[in-house]
């Protein structure tokens, strides 16, 4: 049996421990295992975020709650549009007076739109030179979303059917057969997409890499061409003034007139 002073002492100790814990909990000091620290790190360095589709960084991509059947269409249409935009960028006039190399050929609207949905470029400018990186990051996000969908395929399939029912205004119960069919269909789609999305992009980038290696040179040449035109026009003015040179020399001498 504990004596009264001992009980009081223990009580005081526990109170102090609780207060201390409360103090520590409410302080901003983060420990190595603190979730806040991890969140803080993720915020500070969002480039290396995990690519979960439930991460805030990837929220703007339509891979969280969107209609699954639309995922492949969205992914491939976006990639195709950006690659086509990149090809067309060869005929786009560069900003030759830009202060930095990246600003010489800023990203086209489609690339910019996608880049802003990805954590690496969310708060940064993107240049047309970075097309491949943006697309590879987009692919990574897409593959992550597919794999995550695969891990939780059965509940996701049920949700998908529920959504379809809701959109149709139906209140019928979901049968096991429907779930199995949805799971099977999604499984096939995911397997096909995981097998084809990366090789497709790699193939496209292999062609683009060859073409794009000359894009900086092509851009520089366009700028040199414009600078040359400026010099030509200035020299043409100089030549106009040069027509007066013989008379200017003569005019310098005030003491004689040349015979006309």
């Amino acid at each position: 049996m504990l004596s009264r002073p001992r009980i009081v002492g223990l009580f005081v100790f526990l109170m102090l421990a609780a207060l201390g814990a409360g103090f520590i909990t409410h302080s901003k000091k983060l420990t190595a295992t603190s979730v806040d620290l991890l969140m803080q790190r993720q915020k500070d360095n969002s480039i290396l975020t995990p690519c979960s589709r439930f991460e805030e960084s990837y929220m703007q991509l339509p891979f969280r709650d969107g209609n699954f059947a639309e995922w492949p269409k969205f992914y491939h249409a976006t990639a195709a549009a950006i690659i086509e935009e990149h090809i067309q960028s060869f005929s786009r006039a560069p900003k030759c007076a830009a202060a930095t190399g990246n600003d010489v050929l800023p990203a086209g609207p489609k690339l910019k739109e996608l880049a802003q949905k990805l954590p690496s470029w969310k708060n940064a400018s993107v240049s047309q030179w970075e097309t491949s990186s943006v697309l590879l990051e987009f692919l990574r996000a897409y593959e992550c979303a597919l794999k995550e969908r695969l891990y939780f395929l059965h509940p996701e399939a049920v949700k998908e059917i529920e959504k379809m029912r809701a959109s149709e205004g139906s209140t019928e119960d979901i049968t096991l057969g429907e779930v199995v069919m949805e799971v099977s269909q999604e499984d096939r789609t995911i397997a096909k997409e995981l097998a084809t999305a990366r090789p497709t992009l790699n193939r496209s980038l292999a062609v683009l890499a060859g073409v794009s290696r000359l894009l900086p040179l092509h851009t520089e040449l366009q700028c040199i061409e414009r600078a040359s035109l400026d010099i030509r026009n200035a020299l043409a003015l100089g030549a106009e003034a040069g027509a007066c040179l013989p008379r200017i020399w003569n005019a310098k001498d005030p003491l004689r007139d040349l015979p006309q």
Partner: protein
Amino acid sequence: MKRLFACTGFTLLLLAATAHAQNLGGLQLYENMHKITLQEVALEGVNDQIVNYVVQMADQEEMIPEGKTVSDMKEVVKAAFEARLDDFCEQYSGSFDACPQAYQMFREWGLDIIDTRTLSTDLLHIAAGYETGVSGNMGEIFTIAERTLTIRNIWRSQDDALLTPEVFPLVRAIPRPDNVTDGMFDDLGSELKKYVPNAVWRYRYGIAAFDKQPPCKETGGSTELFEAIEERSCIVEEKLRALRDALPSAVSAYSPLLQRGEIVIFPLRRLDDPAHVIVWMMAENVNGTIRRDVGLGWDLMLDSVPIGILGGSPCDTGKLGEPYCTVVERFSIRPGGRYEDPPKEPGVEEGGLCQLPFARDGYLCRPLRPDRCNAEIEDKEPDSIVLAACQPTRAKQPVAMTQSGPDICRTGWWRIPTEETINTTLPPLDQIDTLRPGKCSICKPAMYCEASCPGNAMAYTYPKNENGVIRICISSGARRSLLRASIMHELVHAQQECDQKAGTDVTDTLEHCCAREMEAYTVGCRTLAEDGILEFAGMSMEECAGSQANISCQEFGANACANVDTAAFIDRFGKAVEKWEQTPGLQLPTCSEISNLGVSGVMNLDSRILSMVEAMNGACTPGCQTKYQNTIGNNLCYIGQCIEQSIEQSRVIPGRMALVVGDESFPWDSCAANDSQAGGLITLPAISPPLAPAYNPRLLVESLDRALCQLNGLPALTPPVRCQFDYQRRLSIPTSDYVSTALSFASQIEENETPTASLQRMTQGIATRIGTSMLTRYLSWASMALSDTLRTGNRLLNSMEKTEFPRTTCPRTATEKPDFCSASSSSD
């Protein structure tokens, strides 16, 4: 590198393969790649070529069930490809006995051949990516040559040609004529859709090549490109000809007049449908006749040509072996796929790639200078690879000399003849004494066709007479093919004499003779090179000018001017001229014909002759007109001539000297603004020929070997396969039993497969970077002079912009302080 691109291009263009099978022309890049990947991975969207191949393979392997025909099997194979096992078994054997094996076998054959085709397609796509922009084909999404040519056109002066040892075709771009309408392109596109990609391959070098072919006969439907390469699409030809005929066909329809050899490019037209296909149009002045052409091309060549898998007979048993050819001839398939030798097509016979405006500058189409550059180098470093080496100049004496100052752009090709020059007529030869120079010049050249010239020469320039007239005799018997060069040569002599005293012999000493003759022959030989005579002779312009100068100055000794083989030159040159004169369609006027036609005759011969006459008028003489194309070089020619004319003809040293130190030479000198020093500290860029960066393939391969060994944690070993397998590893530490030791041996290679594969993948990227780095190093050196000049120009123009000019003129005899002086004082 260009040769590599072009070689790959030829491979792409010519090698046999399926055309329809890979018809992806309507798709954009990504969609195209997606389709290929789906085919490769999931056997989705497999085309009839693959189905036919697998059916024929089944026939060869005797896997077609009794009662079924080859055509029945097409649906069976399709069912296998589409993973419909039930349908397959029902159609194939009606039961499940042995059916799954056949199902799997057919799918594997399909996957195998698709795998092979995809590999070749991938490689061709990668090559297409690397060639785009530098291949010389027309219509690509960008063309480095076109861009550099534009820059060259902005910078060049026509007189630059005299300093350039190579003949580059003149190219200009002009707007599309109004009679070439959008509807014509739409019509072409709607017809072309039915023939893509065969027709694009077929007409990529233009429609003109088909003019000499038999009349068009529709032969569509070929499944393999090596067959399709002989196909013709009459309706497409008709549409292309309609476009071509709408282009201007006369020299005079182009402004300024189209020079001999000059090329006009009209804006490319990208067709809305089919995608990636463009239409190019060009015109060229070939010996006074306008040759027009229209052709097709890709902005990005995605319709690559994979290996052929069907047909292929007759089969070369000597090369391919009896068993293979038996299969080819009996079953009409090429197991594993093959590239067959393509037949020669008309486009190639007519010049093919080399008649396209940009490609003709490439190494495939333009030989190295034979006199100074040689692919066979005798004294080269062992273990080194030398593609070509060029020697320095062979001239022994000065190659040009002037009376005073540099005489910038004296030849005058940069000037456009004025109306006054064009309308000038000469009096008869017996009244030459009545001729006088015009107000703009101090001399007057007068060309006459005469029965013979002094020394029995083809042409001869007399010294300037007291009236300032320089008589030029052109022999009526002068060889027509050399007439243009001779006239230009003599006009250079006239220019040399123009600012000399009357009666001066400009070739009195060895130095003078060589300098004057080399300069004149440089101009003449340039025209011979443009005509192609020097190419026939296999000699360079320098060799031509040097040899002829040696002949003209032989009174000072043999080979006095240049260290070239003059005797060999005479022999080769004579034969080349004879060969050139046999060129079909060559229309060469005689001297009499030219003089009868007057100025128009000369214009037809070469408008630059009149420019050379025009150049004897001072560019900056008050009251005289000077016309030239607005380019940087031409403006500099004009400014330079103005400065020279000012210094040589005006009295720039004042006739007034200060009495004591501190006196002013001119009134109000002290009020003058400070010298802005614009251009005072500018250094001219050093112009040095670009050097190809060192290429050490052995070193690169060795470093790759080293990398392989490093990946496996071993020191560098030769051959590198030793890093893959080390027999001592397991033998020195054996396992408990022989079986596991043997298995360990076998798995040793597998362990290293991943690093080896990753190295192989990396190698392509590393090699690309090495290649790009070499190109960058070359370009940074080659463009150094241009970038320095641009920088200098920019600085000078900035300085000029900042110059403040006074608003009042200098008073000549003012006794009171002028306004600007007061203003200057007050501002101080």
